[in-house]
């Protein structure tokens, strides 16, 4: 029997529909898999640190694979907890489980927009961040930007900062390109790429045309410039590995890529690449730790959330994968790495707020139209 923390019948019915809609198999796993898995305690019961009586298991859903491997060993050893991790590629994989009634997942690394949806649907436990010592390590920039609070309650702890920068070949360019316009420059025809992602691409176009990427006022212009751009591109990349390969093989000299992939390309593949935020601005968001309702091991999950935000452990996120943790780790890094992770103050970073349904669907239409053009 799984515990339904929320009891309204209409919600249950909706949940059932949603669950069925997601996948029959997931629903079945949700109904048959458990049997008294949930603990009686919830994270808000913890009023003093450290929490006592951790459960002996912890099931993570964290897509920072290499970091999760580190965490399985390090956290497991320190707290004598048996940790497992499910890597995933797309948030709907875990979200559908929450919809079907979670009784398996203890801790998720979730993107901001999915955190918001989960909060709206009451899928998450509130967290006692005031008693968590590592809460103080989270940088103010991300604390202020992320939307993980509702009605004075906190539902998530930021894990990482995710930047959508302009990645470029630093041998080809003498200095970092200072404008997204480089992606529309005929001089680089055939050596450019875009990301096959409606939001990322449309927001780049919005920034390029001087519009608000969260609430643009001229969709036609966005579509127009993206269509204009097409002949200059080698391809739209749809898979991170593919995107990185384009730069590593020097098939392209500029285009959007993630910071982590840029890091891997530069330091592990030895490619001459770097990233920048053009003067029009660059979007960034965060991934956050959340504890979904129905988690069988909520207290261990809470301890884990705190542990992950300790400077040493957060630094591993960068060391293993090249992503910027939500914690200031500059003291832990080599000079070279510190330089790489440093986001100059003059960068114009725009927090990627969750788009309204209307903007998102317009972006999606535009992107489909661009690709079909």
């Amino acid at each position: 029997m799984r515990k339904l923390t929320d009891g309204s019948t209409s919600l249950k019915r909706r949940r059932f529909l949603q669950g069925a809609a997601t996948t029959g198999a997931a629903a079945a796993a949700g109904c048959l898999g458990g049997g008294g898995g949930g603990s009686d305690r919830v994270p808000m019961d913890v009023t003093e640190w450290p929490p006592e009586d951790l459960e002996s298991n912890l099931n993570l859903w964290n897509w920072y694979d290499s970091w999760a491997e580190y965490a399985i060993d390090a956290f497991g050893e320190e707290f004598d907890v048996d940790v497992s991790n499910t890597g995933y590629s797309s948030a709907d994989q875990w979200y559908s489980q929450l919809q079907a009634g979670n009784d398996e997942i203890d801790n998720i690394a979730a993107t901001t927009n999915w955190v918001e949806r989960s909060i709206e649907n009451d899928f998450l436990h509130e967290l006692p961040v005031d008693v968590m010592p590592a809460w103080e390590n989270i940088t103010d920039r991300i604390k202020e930007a992320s939307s993980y609070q509702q009605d004075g309650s906190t539902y998530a702890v930021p894990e990482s900062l995710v930047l959508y920068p302009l990645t470029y070949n630093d041998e080809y360019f003498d200095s970092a390109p200072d404008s997204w316009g480089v992606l529309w420059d005929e001089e680089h025809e055939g050596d450019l790429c875009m990301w096959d992602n409606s939001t990322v691409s449309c927001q780049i176009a919005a920034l390029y045309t001087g519009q608000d990427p969260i609430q643009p006022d001229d969709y036609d212009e966005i579509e127009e410039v993206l269509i204009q751009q097409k002949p200059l591109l080698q391809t739209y990349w749809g898979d991170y590995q593919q995107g990185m390969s384009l730069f590593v093989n020097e098939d392209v000299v500029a285009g959007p890529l993630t910071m982590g992939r840029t890091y891997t390309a530069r330091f592990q593949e030895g490619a001459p690449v770097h990233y920048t935020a053009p003067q029009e601005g660059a979007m960034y968001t965060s991934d956050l730790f959340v504890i979904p309702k129905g988690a069988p091991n909520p207290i261990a999950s809470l301890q884990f959330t705190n542990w992950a935000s300790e400077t040493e452990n957060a630094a591993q996120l960068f060391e293993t994968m090249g992503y910027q943790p939500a914690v200031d780790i500059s003291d832990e890094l080599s000079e070279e790495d510190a330089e790489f992770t440093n986001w100059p103050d003059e960068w114009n970073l725009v927090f990627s707020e969750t788009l309204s349904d209307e903007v998102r669907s317009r972006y999606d239409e535009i992107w489909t139209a661009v690709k079909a053009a």
Partner: protein
Amino acid sequence: MTEPSRSDDGGAGSGGDPEPVTDGGSAAVDGRVSDLTAFLRERPRLRTLSIAGPPYGILVFFFAIPLLAMLVVSFQADQIGGAWTLGNYVDFLTSDTYLTVVWRTFLISVQVTAIVAAVGYALAYSIVRFSRRTTLLLLLVILPFWTSYIIRMYAWINILQSDGVLDSILNLVGLPAVGLLYTKTAVLIGFTYVWLPLAVLPFYASLTNLDGDLIEASKDLGAGPIRTFLSVTLPMTINGVITGIVLVFIPTFGSFITPRLLGGTNNVMIGMVIENQFKSAFNWPFGAAIGMVISVVVVALLLLATRFGGGLFGAGGETS
């Protein structure tokens, strides 16, 4: 939008892993099997149910319920649980953009199916007629299935990219490089490669059942190789051909990985649009509506093709 640690294989839609759910041990039944069979023997309806039940159960559980759920969702506004609406269908069916994509997807699928059918038939035919090592050759045909779809696509990226394997070979024999990656040709090559086994196997099965005497009889009666192929070999194997075509056409129509990885900027297919609704546009109802329309279109096309095939080549043909 961060790091995908793994990716799904091709085919429209995706979802969580359907883990097999076992229902506890059944050790207690040990000595009672004969009792059970006797019990069932006396109850023919129950026996029929116990035999026919599981397959139907599987069909309902894995196909009917998800499809029904998708149908329900497709009539909701904006998000799951939203108000009832026809808007998703209206938006899709009145948009030039989406219809253009569907038309393009159809063209690509037809091309892919035609190429795969031709190459696959030739391959199956030569395996059946001219080779003694059929098992080995069939094994080679199926072999790629042991490797992940995505890895195989990366292999093709390496082969097709400018200065990749293909270009190097061309250079070696003194031909100019072609740099096929990110072109439609690359998409066609990738599809042909991944779907070939799906066509070869049914083609092979129907060709091995073909009585060689019929071919000789046709030639004996004055038909050359081409006439014989068209009037005997093809009609006699038409069921296998249609099976192969169906198996290739459907997944091609729903594909999103191959065109995305190999296709560059001008090869958007409807599967990519659907995937996008689920994974980044967060508009599941709209994705579900597109999925429903596409399902209906594909099924209709296939019914049409089957009928057309049947009418064209006569009454299918009983073997033996």
